[in-house]
């Protein structure tokens, strides 16, 4: 009896199970099978996904590095083949796929396409900055991106030989790719010149790239002055030059480095002139003062270097001058203004006329010389008083007159 009950239970279980089985056979997804499942392919390889038990209405969705698309199958003997088009099978990266039938997702999966190392390597290299400073601080960076023939970056830990040349020194070092590229800092030398680099990956050589090592910052230097004569004639030009300016490693600084000369005169006024360097030497010019003076001069490469201080003096150029009143004292002619060799002073020398009335300053008039003379005219309408006195200044020399009377 017990046996019978067991038998019945067993039988009913079998029936039940088979009926479930019957239901399951209705669902296609259970029987669909990817025949040639493979996790990894090499770029450029022909990739086919073959499925059992599917029909023409199935489609394959692909999601790749750059692309998403839908493929249609080719059916042969209860097998469907999806051929991955070349532009997808040539790119490295993970590919996710979904097998579809009428909006229903039957199966999903993924595989990886690896770069094809055994193909002609292409090297892209980026080198920069292309100009660096001599010494131990600055560097250029070389980034090497080796790729297979289908433009896929080679896998991590690909060996890259890096070659470097600086004058007689030529050496090589091995680096490895990591995260799409390999890189190395190329340190500057203490000497100026060009550093050439190139790289080799899997027997393929890159082009040559160059960085310029430019001189480092200027160091302190000497300055000198040169004058034709030392008279304060407001006309001659004084010249300041530097010694050959060097950087901290003894390289001559780059052409075009700007040197500023600051000049302090007796009155404490700052004058300035500039020159840029050629082969380390900068020259700047400035016109002589028009009165006796002493200058203290110092040169600077702003913020970086400075020179010694030099001092130069200028002598009185004009010994004396005549003042002639005419036209009822309304015309004042000053001159001839004679320089150190009695020659007429060049045009443009400044003469100032201070006009006083009863010891109170009325006005200062200013003119520049022409052929050694300066004339001031005081018209009656502007100067109506009956007496004026004057002070005349020219090239650092001054003269005062007595009270002169003017007719009403």
């Amino acid at each position, binding site marked *: 009896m017990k046996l019978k009950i067991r038998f019945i239970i067993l039988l009913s279980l079998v029936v039940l199970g088979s009926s479930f089985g019957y239901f399951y056979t209705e669902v296609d997804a259970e029987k669909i099978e990817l025949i040639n499942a493979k996790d990894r392919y090499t770029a450029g390889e022909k990739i086919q996904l073959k499925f059992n038990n599917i029909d023409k209405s199935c489609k394959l969705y692909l999601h*790749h590095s750059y692309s998403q698309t839908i493929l249609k199958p080719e059916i042969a003997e209860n097998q469907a083949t999806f051929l991955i088009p070349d*532009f997808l099978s040539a790119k490295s*990266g993970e590919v996710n796929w979904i097998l579809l039938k009428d909006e229903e997702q039957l199966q999903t999966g993924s595989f990886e396409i690896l770069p094809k190392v055994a193909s002609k390597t292409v090297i892209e290299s980026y080198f920069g900055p292309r100009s660096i400073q001599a010494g131990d601080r600055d560097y250029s960076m070389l980034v090497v991106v080796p790729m297979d023939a289908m433009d896929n970056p080679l896998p991590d830990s690909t060996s890259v030989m890096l070659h470097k040349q600086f004058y007689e020194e030529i050496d090589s070092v091995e680096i490895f790719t990591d995260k799409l590229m390999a890189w190395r800092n190329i340190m500057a030398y203490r000497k100026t010149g060009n550093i050439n680099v190139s790289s080799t990956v899997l027997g393929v050589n890159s082009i040559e790239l160059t960085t310029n090592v430019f001189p480092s910052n200027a160091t302190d230097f000497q300055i000198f002055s040169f004058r034709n004569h030392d008279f304060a004639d407001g006309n001659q030009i004084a010249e300041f030059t530097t010694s050959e300016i060097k950087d901290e490693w003894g390289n001559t600084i780059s052409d075009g480095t700007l040197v500023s000369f600051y000049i302090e005169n007796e009155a404490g006024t700052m004058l300035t002139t500039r020159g840029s360097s050629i082969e380390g030497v900068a020259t700047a010019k400035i016109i002589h003062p028009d009165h006796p003076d002493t200058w203290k001069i110092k040169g600077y490469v702003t913020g970086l270097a400075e020179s010694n201080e030099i001092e130069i003096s200028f002598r009185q150029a004009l010994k004396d001058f005549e003042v002639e009143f005419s036209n009822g004292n309304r015309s004042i002619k000053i001159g001839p203004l004679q320089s150190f060799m009695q020659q007429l002073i060049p045009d443009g020398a400044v003469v100032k006329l201070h006009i006083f009335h009863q010891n109170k300053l009325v006005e200062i008039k200013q003119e520049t010389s022409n052929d050694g003379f300066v004339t001031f005219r005081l018209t009656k309408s502007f100067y109506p008083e009956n007496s004026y006195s004057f002070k005349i200044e020219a090239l650092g020399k001054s003269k005062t007159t007595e009270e002169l009377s003017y007719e009403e």
Partner: protein
Amino acid sequence: MKNKMNKNIYRAGLIVTFVALNALVLFGLSSVLAWLNTGAERTGMLHTEVLSKDVYLPDIEWGSLENPGRPMEQQTLGEIQQDYLNAWYVKHVAYKTNNPYGIEDYYTDSSRVNLFKTIAFNKENDIHLEATTLNHHPKLEFYSADGQLVVITDDEVIEYQEIYEQDKKLLTHQDTSSYRVMMLLEDGFWRIRHMVKHSAKAQEDSVATNKIAEVKGKKIIVENNEFKIKGINYYPKDSPWDMFGENFSKDTIAQDFKIIRNAGLNSIRIFIQYEDFGKAEVLPQKLEKLRTVLDLADENQLKVVVTLFDFYGDYSVLDWTLTHRHADQIVSAFKDHSAILAWDLKNEPDLDFESRGKDMVLQWLSHVADEIKKYDPNHLITIGWSSPEAAVNLQDKIDFVSFHFYKDLEKLASDYSILEKEIMNKPLVMQEFGMSSYHGLWNPFGTDEEAQAGYHKKMQDFFKKEDLAFMSWTLYDFEEVPSQVVGRLPWRKSRQRFFGFLDQNGEPKPAFKYITH
């Protein structure tokens, strides 16, 4: 005489023709000159300034900027991020239209070929995609010393895509991938040189939660007590559908809240218009006004259901990231505010099923729900479905189910019992119901104020019997209803104006007695 007249007409004709001809010649010459002066500015060649407006704003969060190359500058990082997202955007647009417009700006010579080939293949097979990314977690791996090259690993890129063949949707799919990207600075653009997809590395970030409201079974719990919504939809009397506009008045709202509180209600529902709040760039002054309203609600012990995305109707996949930023900025700002009970994702989105496609609207809602939960895990979310039938949608995504009921009272009991069976384990809220007391020129036989009172009495009896949460429509009768709400037709507008419990002077109508039970 006649001859002379004729001659004069001749002359006049000649002169007029002469003047007209001259004018024409002058116009022609000036047009040519003007045309020669048009075109791009020379500076355009340098790409120093690319005028752009935000079209694509997925959530992007930079990981470590530590890298062996060179320290990253904030300015450059901003440029890289902008160009990287633009690269994604032009790719989405290109795959949607199968037109490679804009690809050249954001992909280098060698990498753009991959996109061109895909576009050609998809075009040939009549395939197109609508796609967007929702999430980026880029990490800077390398930045070269000369500032011309970066390598980024973008982990956890959540990509949503719909694939169409011959305009028929084949697949809706969301996946997470990881990309390693090399970008080069060329012509002022950061362009993608290499892009390699990897299997995604999952990152779990923990969000500290501070739950203000939660749902247990069919109950809404606030501060450990069951909270039964007895509420009302609220707009100020003088600024319906424009609560946060020019006429915003703190005093008016404070007064109204007192009325609501004194009437025995415990909650209100308010609306935030998508454009009014500044779309993807939410205006700070609007947030301030919203904060004022929420603070006032707090003072009056009212809980608030805040309805987002009012008057929004695009839903297209490429617009998603903009709406996400809108939601993100609003809910993040108030994630700890105790007055908020729930975020209502959108008012009556099912009304857009027909015009925009049911699937599209549901996908959008479902992603917005995820987005809001991500930024504000403290409050509840719901969707204000326009009818009990529509309320069965997306019930797994929301905390409680809201539906509106404007049908005949006879259908109430049966509709409700059907809905109750469909939704076994979520609280139900009748979030809008009401009756207009308008009977006038456009509808002389409409219901009057007494009928309205009767309606509300029956509704309250029903709520009491079924223990159902409710929010009625609405506190006031309005002077004016904007056309966006019910259209321009005057009989619809007039009807919409008279749903209030208080009339336009603020005096209680007979229905006020039945505002709650």
